[in-house]
């Protein structure tokens, strides 16, 4: 019974993380836009301090949330250890790159606007993918 309750809580927590990521995506598109020009225009008005004000709490809180979410992978036996490690490195790397690309944009490097979109979409997709893996693994276990 406790195992089922813990699985339920873990899935609920995972669902909340996905919801938060989707809301983040929505907010990003709503406030900034999704085309390279919109992103370039948004960051053109920003100073380094303005970027850091967003970057610091994001780095801190998303790191902690990802750590809590991804540690569920260690309970899963539907995928190989190698695949788990691959997902972990991919997700954390995408997050790090997504967070750091605005610094390149405000420095005027145009290609970083395209990279920002790539890393942002990549991060959201991989996060959803990991949640689906966790979800199906928990169904199989129960």
């Amino acid at each position, binding site marked *: 019974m406790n195992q089922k309750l813990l699985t339920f809580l873990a899935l609920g927590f995972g669902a909340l993380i996905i919801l938060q990521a989707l809301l983040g995506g929505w907010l990003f598109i709503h406030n900034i836009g999704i085309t390279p020009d919109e992103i370039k225009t948004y960051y053109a008005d920003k100073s380094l301090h303005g970027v850091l004000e967003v*970057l*610091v709490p994001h780095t801190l809180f998303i790191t902690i949330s990802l750590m809590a979410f991804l540690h569920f992978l260690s309970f899963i036996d539907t995928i190989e250890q190698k695949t788990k490690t691959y997902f972990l490195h991919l997700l954390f790397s995408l997050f790090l790159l997504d967070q750091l690309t605005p610094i390149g944009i405000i420095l005027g490097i145009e290609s970083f606007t395209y990279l920002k979109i790539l890393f942002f979409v990549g991060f959201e997709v991989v996060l959803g993918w990991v949640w689906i893996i966790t979800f199906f693994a928990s169904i199989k276990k129960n």
Partner: protein
Amino acid sequence: MKFIASKKLSDNPTLRAVIVWMLLLLMLAMVLSLGAKEIEYGLTPQTWVSTVMGNPDEFIDPMLFSDLLLSIHTDLFGLIITFILIASLYVRTLRSMKSKIIVFSALLIALLLYPLGLLGSSLIGAMGIITALSAFIVFHTLIIILCFDLLLSLSRKRL
């Protein structure tokens, strides 16, 4: 969290990778946080005091109390979580109990002095601001050092 209960993190590759990434990103967050604070408050104690209390000679208005309170509230929330995470890992290292107590005491004192110093600046003036921002720098530096130490312990499979 499983990493608190697990006997040895080195034996679990998934948890180990999660913790390594968490430590690296927390270190980055601490460096960025220091950078943001330096841009906001300046590099010297004189500029810290001018930013918070204002400086009529340089036509700098004092910081609004609501802004100061919001900044302390947000900072403290993140720093407490960081402290708990790092402390829960550091307590498992092979360092002596004495050194752990010294490190945790220093971190806790710095964490207390940061908000109290800023809030008390209206009573004790510039000394409060200098104490608060020094405590902020000490806390961040210590966390970065502890993250390095934990990464070393993980790489040597001692955690």
